[in-house]
Each structure stands twice: as C-alpha cells, then as structure tokens.
C-alpha cells in the first residue's frame, strides 16, 4: 500500500515538473507583434528583449539580404553590414554582440531566428544604413546633393560630389564628354568653373529626378569614377586627365576620324569617267584632311569581298557608275538611294536598337543617307547640274554599309549629250567638287551632333 502511494506521488511530481518546464520554455520564447512603417509602407515587426526586429521577407524590398550561416550580409543604400546570427533570442537582443557596419565593428543587437525565420534588429540596421528609426517607424531619408567641389592636379583633375547617402550612378561616354548620372538625386542646373586644365568647367543638371554631371573628356584623357562611403555621407569622386589610362570605346572616337570610301564601277569604253571623278574627289577630300579610300585604282575589276569589306568599315560609301541599257532613252545624273532593310542583318539589328550615342556611332540611321543626298543634290544644282533621285531596294554593297551610302550615276554614255558631258574635264571637276563639299559638310555636322564639339 505504501509503495503504491509513493509511486503516485512520484508521478505527480514528474507531471508538475513537465508543466513548469513547458511554461518556462514558452516564457523564454515569448515575443509580441508590433505595427511597423517600413520605408513608407505598412509592415509588421516583433519585439524581442525590448527591441524591434523585422523579418527578412519584410526587409527585402529595402535592402539585399544574403544569409551565410552563422552570419547574414545586408547590402543597401551604399552600405554593407554583417550580423552574426545568434540562435539565443534573448542574447541577440542585447548589446553584447559584435556587428560589422561597413568598415567599423560595433557592439549592437544582432540577428536571430524566430520559428526558423531570420529577424534583424531595426535600430542596428538604421545605424548601419544611415536611416532614421524610432519605434514603429523606419524611414529612409532622400539622398541629396550636399556639396560640389573640385581640385586641380598635375596630370588629373578631380571633381567631388557629396551626397547624403549612397545611390546608384551610371557613367557614359558621349563624344567628347563624360556623363555621370546619379539616380534619385535632385539637383539645380549649374555650371561650375575649376582651376584645373583638364576639367576647366563642368555642368550639373537635374533631369527627371536624377542629377546629371557632364564633364569634358579631352583627347588622350582617361577617367575614373568611384565612391567613398563615410559615416553619414557618401562621396562620388570623378578623376579626369591624361594621367589615367584612356579606356574610352573606339566607337566614341570614330566620328572624328571617319572613313570615306569611293567605289568607282567600271565605266567601260576608253574614258574611265567614274575613276576620274573618284580620284579627283579623293584628292580634294584628302587635302582637307579626310581619310579616303577607293575600291579600285586601275581599270581592273573590283573583287566583291574587297568592296563589301570597305563598305562595312565606311562612314560614307559612294558608288560611282554610268547608266547603260540597250535601247534606253535616258540621260542625266541619277542618285540612287537604298530603301528598305539593309542586306546586313547586323545593321538592321543596330538600327532597331535605339539611339544611344555609341549605337549611332556604330550604325547610323537611314536618315544619314538622306541628309548626304540632299547636300549633294544641292551642291550639284548650284553648279548647274540637274540630277534625279530614285529609291531602290537591295542595293549592293550599300546594304552592307552602316552609315551614309548611295550610288551616283554620272550619266548615260549612249546619250550624245551625256557622252559629251562625261568626256568634259569641266564636268568631272564640278561633280568632284560637289561630292567633296557635300561629304565634308555632312561629316562635320555628324561629328558635331555625335560629339557635341564643333
């Protein structure tokens, strides 16, 4: 009987102990939910040890979180933070943990797991990211341009843009300019003068909520753009000068050194009028400093591959020919403009790609041929030479040329009037001058448009 009572009492003690342990466990893991305004949107936080914690999923719209147990890496607003993941909730909410905030290591609350979900302390996050935080609200301050300064150097000049916090930026070469766009920063339009010889002045403008900084990039000058993260602010540093390697795309320099290709087709007969005009035009252009190539120098026929290759490398490609057709009753100069898709698919793809300055430098639009044609027709007209235009699909090798390209038919030798004109040196000079002047005017205007430099 005594034995039976003793075992019952033991069972009671065991039951009570289990309930006590269970209650203690529940008390230890207890947390409360709270409403949180996170970067302007409603969210939910939990309170652990008197501090607010937000879950990984709630924070992911604001920062990038990468879990690398037993640490978690948080990147955003130009900062990089590393939190240890402390599995003890109570200990994580104390200041006994070492947390890495950019380059400094501080004692602060750390990350923890609640029910398998990662939670991060909002006060430590705000401290590391430069955000404003008070209980129930986590605010990301707008980035503002706080200061612009410059420094002249021996072989580089420096422009420093101070921002209240880090924001993304892009850099782009457009002709002779370096354009740095700082996203999400308002700026007043202003031109800054410096004492440097490589960046004598630069412009800051506000465009669609972004700050755009346009700096001159002289020939032979290189550049670098980098940011320096400091406590409470970020500096964007731009160095320009010959002391830096020039890593500018070749395409950006192309408009200033264009290749003009003249393509004289065999004219037949004793008078090679197309070659005469091509040589005369090339001479005029070369004297003016332009780079000119002819697809043939003698009466020999032109290899197709060579013509195509030169067409692909050209900024201006002009085929010179004479018209012939048995029984044809036609005379005069005709300018044939290519229409429709180019035969080179890569040219079509670039034309569809948009109007980025580098794309335009690589492949021009059909408008280039139109502009050069109009200039040439004007020059021919001013010399008393009447000319007609005709649009033709699938022209060769103009369809391979990425920029202005057309064929100029100098006349029809089977017409007595044209035969006389084609044999006349005066006519050759007039056509050559018209060609050279129109090409030079066109390329000069094109270089100005693409590089922004006269």
């Amino acid at each position: 009987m005594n034995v039976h009572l003793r075992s019952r009492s033991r069972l009671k003690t065991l039951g009570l102990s289990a309930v006590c342990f269970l209650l203690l466990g529940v008390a230890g893991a207890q947390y409360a939910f709270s409403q949180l305004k996170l970067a302007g949107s409603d969210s939910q936080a939990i309170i652990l040890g008197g501090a607010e914690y937000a879950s990984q999923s709630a924070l992911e719209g604001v920062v990038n979180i990468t879990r690398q147990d037993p640490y978690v890496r948080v990147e955003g607003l130009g900062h990089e933070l590393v939190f240890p993941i402390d599995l003890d909730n109570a200990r994580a909410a104390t200041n006994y943990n070492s947390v890495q905030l950019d380059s400094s290591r501080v004692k602060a609350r750390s990350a923890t797991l609640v029910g398998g979900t990662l939670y991060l302390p909002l006060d430590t996050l705000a401290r590391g990211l430069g955000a404003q935080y008070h209980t129930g609200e986590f605010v990301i301050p707008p980035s503002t341009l706080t200061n612009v300064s410059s420094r002249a150097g021996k072989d580089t000049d420096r422009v420093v843009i101070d921002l209240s916090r880090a924001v993304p930026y892009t850099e782009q070469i457009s002709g002779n300019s370096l354009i740095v766009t700082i996203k999400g920063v308002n700026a007043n339009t202003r031109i800054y003068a410096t004492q440097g010889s490589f960046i004598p002045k630069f412009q800051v403008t506000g465009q669609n909520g972004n700050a755009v900084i346009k700096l001159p990039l002289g020939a032979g000058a290189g550049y670098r753009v980098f940011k320096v993260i400091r406590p409470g602010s970020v500096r964007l540093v731009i160095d320009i000068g010959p002391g830096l390697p020039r890593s500018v795309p070749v395409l950006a320099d192309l408009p200033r050194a264009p290749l003009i290709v003249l393509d004289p087709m065999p004219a037949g007969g004793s008078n090679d009028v197309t070659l005469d005009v091509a040589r005369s035009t090339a001479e005029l252009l070369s004297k003016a400093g332009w780079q000119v190539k002819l697809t043939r120098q003698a009466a020999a026929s032109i290899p197709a591959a060579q013509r195509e290759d030169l067409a692909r490398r050209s900024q201006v490609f002009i085929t010179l020919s004479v018209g012939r057709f048995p029984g044809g009753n036609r005379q005069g100069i005709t300018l044939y403009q290519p229409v429709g898709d180019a035969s080179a698919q890569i040219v079509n793809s670039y034309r569809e790609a948009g109007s980025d300055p580098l794309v335009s430098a690589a492949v021009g639009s059909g408008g280039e041929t139109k502009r050069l044609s109009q200039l040439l027709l004007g020059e021919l007209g001013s010399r008393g030479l009447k000319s007609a235009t005709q649009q033709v699909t699938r022209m060769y090798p103009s369809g391979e040329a990425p920029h202005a390209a057309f064929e100029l038919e100098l006349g029809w030798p089977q017409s007595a009037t044209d035969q006389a004109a084609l044999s006349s040196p005066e006519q050759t000079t007039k056509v050559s001058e018209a060609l050279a002047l129109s090409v030079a005017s066109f390329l000069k205007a094109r270089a100005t448009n693409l590089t922004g430099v006269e």
Partner: protein
Amino acid sequence: MLRFLRIIFTPMNIIGLLLLLAASYAKQFVSQPPPQPPAPRLQLEEVQPQKMVIYFSDKDVTSYVKETRNVNVEGQTPGKLAQAATATWVKGPQQANALRVVPAGSVTPQVWLRGQHYIVNLPGSYAKLNYGLSGEHMIICSLTRTLLERSGQDVSFLVGGKNVPTLLGHLNISRAYTKADCPD
C-alpha cells in the same frame, strides 16, 4: 553388278537425288533476271496556248511595261509554265514602247519550282552585260515579276549555277526576291 545397282539405287538414294534435282531447278529459277518491262509509250503532252503576263522595260529603264502574250506551252505544270514565260521574256517584247531586257539571242535561264519558291539559274553570260544599276534592277525585277505573276512566293537567283552576292555589282541577289522588292 546387280548387287552393286541394288546398293546404289536404294529408295533413300533415289529420293535424295530427286530432292537435289528439285533444289537445283529451284535455284536456277530464282536466279533468273526479272523480265524486262515494256518501255513506256512516249506520250507528248498537249501543246496549248496560255495567256501570260510578261514584264519588260520602258524606254527610260525606270518602270515595267506589261505584255499579255499567248504562249504555246507543252503541259500545264507550274514549272513548265514558268520556263515558257522565261523563254518569252528572253525573246523580247512585241510592243514598240517596251525594251527587251537581255540582248537578242541570249541564252534562256533555267527555272525550277520547289513548293512556292522559284530558282532561276542565270547564264554566266548575263554577268558580263555592261549595264548600270537600272539595267541590273530591270533584269532581276522584270523576271521576278514575270514568274510571280501566276503563283509562287519568291525567286532565288544563281549565276552560272553558283550563289553569288551580285549579278553586275549594283544589286544584292544573295537572298530571294519577292514582289515587295520589285514594286511598280
């Protein structure tokens, strides 16, 4: 001797001999070449006049002159109609306001039709024609329009049986031509 014959001509030996002879005959029978079938009788297709629209050049070599011609064609297949139309195109126009596109006596290009696609093999002599851009355009486009007048989707050109980028140096013929490439 009788004993010897009795030993040789046993029933089994006679049956074996008969089987051997039967097998030999069977082998000879199956080894015979099949009988030559009779040659098919030559049946000429009926030659009938067909109305065809042939494209030539105008005097300025800028636009087409269309001629509707009655062409005698043997058979009705699209391939034969296309070849006949090409031969008529080579022969030249009958109207005074139209110009022949290739010189008189030129070789007629060969034409094949595969599905909706014509393939034209221009003779090598065509690549030696001393034409300007208008002339080359007229050769390619008048023939394209002539062939696509009845049916077909596009026309591919070979020169002397080869794929070449251009015929006379002014037009790209590396891809097939459609009606859209040769507008009026």
